[in-house]
């Protein structure tokens, strides 16, 4: 612990410092209360041992200031003084002292008081940690609820859109065929225009006016393009719906054969807006792969987490490369490389721990990679990471073609390695 001593009498100060250092504490000693307060303001102390009677700032005033300082962590304070009457104890404790020790102090008594302080500091620390974890778990829960309802919404919308899109697509094809046929009929009639002009000049003139009104030549030219563009637009709507369905996969609780390439492509579509907003280039290298047996929704979640992290690690103008390949032993590998900020070496061992995040508070729950780790592990696969700070990172997801133990109907485990 970092201990601050405030004692104006040299012999006691020396003795205190000596004992505390022997017990393994880091000690800073002040020769009066004012100096102690200056040191406290500029340092990080968890325990303060102070004499009461000192010139200028006395021990009680020092403790009062410490309590009023509003430090985020608790500071345990021990008043050490020759005063020993009951009233003094009350005054000291009222000011915020945690315990009281009378001088000349007994070494063992001091030791157990320090120990009591350590216990309180430790408890406070644990409590603060638990509070933080609770808040993050709550945020993660809200986040996953949000994702789940988003998935449900997407699936519902997809279903609603699919029906009209299907008959519009169908009708458009019929319309194209029929209009083309009708144009053929029109052409046949137009070949008899000269004869018509002789027999019924009024009718021929009316037809010519109508042709001119609608600019028949342009219409004839434009109609195929119109049909093509409409069909292209419908195809785009179908793709979007398909991506949404692929991603949400709410209808597929069981494992099934999946083409990882299309899974990754669907995921890239989902985050396309983020990629564009950040000005990141996505490079893909997807040779044909055999399908693998997995839980598509869960595996998509893994790619979403890893791809999103890669994109967010990049500075504007950066790139993310996604490669797939088949490795010996029937392993399918998806590699996501970025030239972003990289991961500091001291963070690497904690990467897959739940609640570990380097993102600012409120932006990362610290659950993405730990959930991904659990999913890949349950599929009998592994995630490997290589990273150089300032240069970028590579995440390699290896999945067996047939999962060793596809966790069925299990929630994704939230556990890190080891």
């Amino acid at each position: 612990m970092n201990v601050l001593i405030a004692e104006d009498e040299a012999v006691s100060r020396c003795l205190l410092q000596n004992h505390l250092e022997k017990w393994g504490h880091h000690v800073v000693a002040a020769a009066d209360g004012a100096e102690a307060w200056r040191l406290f303001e500029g340092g990080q102390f968890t325990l303060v041992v102070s004499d009461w009677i000192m010139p200028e700032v006395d021990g009680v005033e020092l403790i009062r200031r410490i309590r009023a300082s509003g430090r985020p962590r608790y500071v345990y304070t021990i008043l050490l003084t020759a005063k020993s009457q009951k009233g003094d104890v009350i005054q000291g404790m009222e000011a915020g002292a945690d315990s009281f020790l009378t001088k000349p102090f007994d070494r063992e008594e001091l030791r157990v008081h320090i120990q009591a302080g350590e216990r309180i500091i430790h408890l406070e620390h644990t409590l603060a940690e638990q509070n933080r974890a609770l808040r993050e778990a709550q945020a993660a829960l809200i986040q996953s609820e949000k994702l789940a309802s988003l998935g449900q919404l997407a699936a519902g919308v997809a279903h609603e859109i699919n029906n009209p899109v299907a008959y519009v697509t169908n009708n458009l094809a019929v319309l194209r065929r029929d209009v083309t046929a009708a144009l053929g009929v029109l052409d046949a009639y137009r070949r008899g225009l000269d004869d018509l002009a002789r027999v019924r000049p009024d009718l021929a003139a009316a037809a010519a006016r109508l042709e001119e009104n609608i600019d028949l030549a342009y219409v004839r030219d434009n109609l195929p393009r119109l049909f093509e563009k409409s069909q292209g637009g419908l195809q785009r709507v179908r793709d979007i719906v398909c991506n949404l369905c692929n991603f949400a996969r709410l209808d597929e609780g069981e494992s099934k054969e999946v083409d990882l390439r299309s899974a990754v492509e669907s995921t890239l579509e989902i985050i396309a807006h983020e990629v564009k907003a950040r000005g990141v280039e996505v490079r893909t290298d997807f040779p044909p792969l055999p399908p693998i047996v997995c839980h598509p929704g869960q595996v998509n979640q893994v790619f979403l987490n890893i791809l999103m992290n890669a994109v967010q690690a990049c500075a504007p103008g950066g790139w993310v490369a996604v490669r797939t390949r088949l490795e010996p032993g029937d392993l399918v590998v998806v590699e996501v490389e970025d030239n972003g900020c990289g991961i500091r070496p001291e963070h690497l061992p904690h990467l897959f721990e739940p609640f570990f995040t380097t993102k600012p508070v409120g932006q990362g729950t610290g659950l993405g990679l730990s959930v991904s780790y659990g999913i890949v592990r349950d599929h009998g696969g592994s995630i490997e990471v290589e990273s150089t700070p300032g240069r970028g990172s590579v995440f390699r997801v290896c999945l067996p073609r047939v999962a060793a133990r596809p966790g069925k109907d299990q929630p994704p485990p939230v556990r890190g390695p080891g």
Partner: protein
Amino acid sequence: MTEPNRPEHDRQANPGGGPGARPEVLDRAELLDRVGGDIDLLRKLVALFLADCPRLLGEIQEAVTRADLPRLERAAHTFKGAVGNFAAPAAFAAALQLETVAHGGDLARAADGYAALAGAVARLLPELRALAGGGDSS
């Protein structure tokens, strides 16, 4: 944690610490126990005390001369705190007595109290010097 050296052991191992160590002047066993048998620490504490002692006593003397009771109480209190670390019952009691006299506003007894304290300290200092200087830490 290692057990601090027992006082008896220290006495046997360190018999030449000075003649006639009367426990009311200096309780060596108690003092050695307080510093956990650490002779180096003891030397350091004694050196600090010897360096500070004339100033502390001078402060008390001046307070008595000027009949400044609050100042006397504070000075006696500080001296008591310092001497309290040395297991020196007589000097400690004299300092406490002086502090009590000053607190009670009994100026008449202050001069006597100071004389008693000065005497106790005069008896204590050679003991401390002998223990710290002559004490063989091996």
